[in-house]
């Protein structure tokens, strides 16, 4: 291999600094969440303790964070499943032009670029005019879908742009019905990318704030609860909570990435028997 040019080292340093910029603050609050009981919001550390994590389990100190965590988790799963199903169906439909497909495509783009507060405000107004109560599982759920679906659909468009149609044709030539082709050929091939869609669906919902603000009703989701805390909590318990939910996010991301990695490996293993049988 040819030697690295000098620019490589400059750019590598830049990249390292960028990663430090990305992760440094998060790591800092993770360290500070282990402050001693008399420690403040910044350095120096006043001893090391689990005091602030223990505080998270006391209702008076932090309010209903476990309830809101539960709601966020359930909502995340609801949004995830819906995003995967709707995106796959939409992705399949968009492979051919159909009446209104261009308008629908621009509607998807609008859903992505529209300032989040408009969704919050608009959905809130619609519900109040219709005499319905806003609730995280109805209005909140729908509002979050306007954020996760565009990502899911764009991923599916990218996947189907790279999809080799001859597999389907082969299946059809061998007599498979269109449902069998979908079930046994198309879905297994696009399977690993569905894990990616699921990852976006869950994490974007779990952390969603602006679109849920006016649409979740009287029961807060976790990001709303955390934002409420920023105005009246001035102890490292905020950092402890931040660290805990970030760790949870990392675990979920790790889980999805592992799933994607193992499924693509399994596929690579299973897919190599071409030419070995029927000799």
């Amino acid at each position, binding site marked *: 291999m040819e030697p690295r040019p000098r620019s490589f080292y400059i750019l590598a340093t830049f990249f390292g600094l960028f990663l430090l910029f990305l992760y440094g603050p998060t790591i800092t609050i993770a360290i500070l969440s282990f402050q001693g009981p008399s420690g403040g919001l910044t350095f120096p550390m006043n001893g090391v303790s689990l005091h602030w994590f223990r505080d998270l389990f006391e209702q008076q100190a932090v309010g209903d964070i476990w309830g809101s965590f539960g709601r966020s988790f359930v909502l995340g799963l609801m949004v995830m499943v819906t995003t995967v199903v709707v995106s796959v169906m939409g992705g399949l439909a968009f492979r051919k032009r159909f009446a209104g497909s261009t308008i629908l495509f621009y509607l998807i783009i609008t859903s992505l670029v*529209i300032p989040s507060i408009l969704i919050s405000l608009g*959905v809130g107004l619609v519900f109040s005019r219709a005499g319905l109560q806003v609730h995280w599982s109805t209005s909140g759920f729908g509002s979050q879908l306007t954020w996760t679906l565009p990502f899911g659909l764009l991923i599916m468009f990218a996947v189907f742009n790279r999809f080799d149609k001859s597999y389907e044709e082969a299946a059809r030539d061998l007599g498979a019905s269109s449902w069998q082709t979908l079930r046994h050929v198309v879905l297994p091939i696009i399977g690993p990318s569905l894990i990616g869609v699921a990852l976006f669906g869950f994490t974007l919902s779990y952390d969603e704030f602006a679109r849920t603000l006016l649409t979740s009703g009287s029961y807060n989701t976790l990001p709303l609860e955390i934002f409420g805390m920023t105005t009246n909590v001035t102890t490292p318990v905020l950092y402890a909570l931040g660290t805990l939910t*970030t760790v949870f996010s990392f675990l979920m991301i790790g889980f999805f990435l592992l799933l994607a990695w193992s499924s693509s490996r399994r596929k690579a293993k299973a897919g190599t028997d071409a030419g070995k049988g029927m000799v």
Partner: protein
Amino acid sequence: MTQFPKNSSASALFMVSPLLVVLLLFLVLPIAMIVVVSFWQATEFSIIPAFVLENYEFLFGSPVTYKVFINTFKYALITWGFTLVIGFTVAYFLAFHVRSLTWQIALFLMCTIPFWTSNIIRMISWIPFLGRNGIANSALMSWGVIDEPLEWLLFSDFAVILAFVHLYTLFMVVPIFNTMMRIDKSLIEAARDAGANGAQILWNVIIPLTKPGIMIGTIFVVTLVMGDFITVRFMSGSQSANVGRLISNDIALLQYPSAAATAVVLLITVLIMIGVLLRFVDIRKEL
């Protein structure tokens, strides 16, 4: 077996029906509602269906509106500049200087993972850095650069821009990296064989071919910053305003018609900007 076009169109409609329902109920209907409400009248206690232009008259008659819109554009422009330079450099390093695909994927994932974590916590995590007794001030004082703590680090425009860059640079990295990975490496070799130096290759070959990615990144960053209300409120300590905060303040005061009028103007502004940007890129082709 041939499929009838009519039949396939009906099946396509069936397949997109759930998508259509969600978008109609939670995107189209709410926007329509906002437009309608922006013509309503508000008293101190309630809002009254009507068709009046007073919300818009007030909005365009107030000097605050123009100041706030200019401030919003300022945030968008500065953030765009920083995210573009940083994002391009990072993507360029990943695409052209990292040689193994495994490393490329690993480092790329390192850049994207924060996207899947909470924005609010990522904002909170700047407090220990930027506070009056924070890490930045202590470090600068111990190095003798400053004698007194800088007051403008936290709760200032500086903090707002810093947070925007921190939150949104990866929206530049991802699409730019994506287009760079598709550049045929033989084009670069050809340029080198023809006698171009590194800077010339970058300027005349790589940047033009990366334009679609830059445009998509720009759309993301500009719309996210234009529509933001929470970063500005949190990082400026409620001292700066942008359009999103104007809307959210009206909402907090239950002045829905006024909030709706501002929202309509913001939406039109954003859509015009996106419309212009989309002239330079065909998103469906770039996916």
